[in-house]
């Protein structure tokens, strides 16, 4: 009986998630251009990846992107949530406003920001020169500034996600614990440090995991804003997978890169679960 209810999900799950995971691993051991039959090449794709100078650059870019955008997203998300939690009127409207970028399609967001970052006619540089910066960066066409621009947009787009989760976590903290803290002379910063942040730690943990995992998968921003350029300065892991698979038709090579992404995501998840007992307090 139960299996009848499960049948549709099982079929779809096996066809589009279960088998593909296994297949991805298998394909990563082959050389396959889609036109000729696949050839088993063992670990060759992985060894070439490690010797691939561009892949090294791609990993460096991805790492930089993650290390910059995740902490900023989390810290700003938390600060805004703490601020918003004190607001009494208009909380819903503010929450919607902060969340709008999250539901906006990344393609549209990336297009708008490409325009805002336009070197000659964009708003960003107009503001920069208004505050007296004589030679504002060339942003998307500069190999030095393209990545910071992508990071700024990613923070803009994803900030609301963490913020909404933090806000829900804050609202889950019971008022009576705050009352007890008031009597125990924990106010202001002390209350934040000794009561609020520890009690919020399960949320922080969750937000950290999903933000980390999500940011390793950055693709659309790069695709639209810079097309991985200039000179691969913003080429990231998922873009590289896409490029190898669907522009160079190197299915095996792309799959090996995808397995590395998978390994990174699994590793983060496992490490976080291991570490969480040190600093996460479940009530």
């Amino acid at each position, binding site marked *: 009986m139960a299996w009848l209810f*499960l049948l549709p999900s099982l079929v779809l799950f096996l066809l589009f998630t279960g*088998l593909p995971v296994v297949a991805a691993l298998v394909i990563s051991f082959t050389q396959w251009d889609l036109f000729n039959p696949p050839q088993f090449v063992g670990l060759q794709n992985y060894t070439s990846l490690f010797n691939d100078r561009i892949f090294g650059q791609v990993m460096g870019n991805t790492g930089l992107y993650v290390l910059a955008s995740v902490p900023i997203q989390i810290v700003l998300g938390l600060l805004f949530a703490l601020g918003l939690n004190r607001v009494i009127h208009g909380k819903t409207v503010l929450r919607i406003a902060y969340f709008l970028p999250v539901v906006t*399609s990344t393609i549209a967001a990336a297009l708008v920001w490409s325009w805002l970052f336009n070197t000659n006619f964009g708003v960003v540089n107009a503001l920069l020169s208004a505050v007296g910066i004589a030679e504002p960066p060339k942003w998307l066409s500069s190999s030095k500034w393209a990545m910071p621009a992508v990071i700024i947009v990613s923070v803009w787009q994803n900030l609301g996600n963490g913020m909404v989760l933090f806000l829900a976590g804050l609202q889950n903290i019971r008022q009576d614990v705050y009352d007890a803290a008031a009597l125990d002379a924990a106010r202001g910063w002390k209350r934040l440090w000794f009561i609020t942040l520890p009690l919020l730690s399960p949320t922080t943990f969750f937000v950290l995991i999903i933000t980390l995992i999500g940011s390793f998968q950055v693709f659309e921003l790069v695709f639209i804003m810079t097309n991985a350029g200039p000179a691969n300065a913003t080429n990231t892991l998922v873009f590289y997978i896409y490029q190898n698979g669907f522009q160079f038709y190197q299915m095996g090579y792309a799959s090996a890169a995808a397995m590395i992404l998978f390994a990174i995501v699994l590793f983060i998840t496992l490490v976080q679960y291991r570490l969480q007992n040190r600093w996460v307090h*479940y009530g």
Partner: protein
Amino acid sequence: MARPTRHSAWDWVIFIALLAGVIITCAPFAWMISTAIKPNAEVFRFPPTLWVEAPLWDNFLRVFTVIPFGRAFANSLMVTGAITILQLIVCSMAAYAFACLQFRGREVLFLIYLAALMVPSQVTLIPNFLVVRNLGWIDTYQGLILPFAFSSFGTFLLRQYFKTIPRELIEASRLDGCSHWRIYLFIVLPLGKPALAALAIFAFVSQWNNFLWPLITTTKPEMQTVQIALSTLQGQFNTDWPLLMAGSVLATMPVLAVFILGNKAFISGLTAGSFGGK
């Protein structure tokens, strides 16, 4: 806060920070609309202005003529709508089995479904592409729809909610002779409406914005979704900013409308995922 704190200076700082935050979050939207209705003469003016002196609505029409945007819009509605409905059906059936039925292997299977949440979609991208290609589904609706008809997240969300339905209610209907199908259709689904609404909005928003999959599985312009059409617009007219912005406004509107109307359900689904997910 029960006790009104007396740091009114702080409250001002927070208020101003929040307001600045809102301005920064919303400014790009304002700029998107403003550019979309700007005549070319105003677009390339320095310094740029938000206010448009002679608004021009043509760009919204032009989007539909320079590329088959109308067709793309219809495709997106069709694909997103179908995925949303299918996810509601498939996930709710699975969630019913996990929440309300006893069977061997229940916990294990559920764990497997949950573990799938950890698999980045890019890992299964190539094998899925091969599956769809071998089925001859490139440039078809089924190729765009079926890979997303099931969602682990949705199953998890619904199962958590269904579990809160009192067991006695289900047992009482069993005693009244209801079959599992009747219980599912007439008790669990109606009671599960809030969670179903959350999933529906969630699925709609994320599928409307889906990009990478339609990018690799569509080749013909008439099968493209809105996001793909928008990206080709960039490729062809990469300095026609008003046109690009008009396309962005159009591509963003449905999902913003759905979100603003259903923001409560959406956010409750999002946060339920986080609190259950621990």
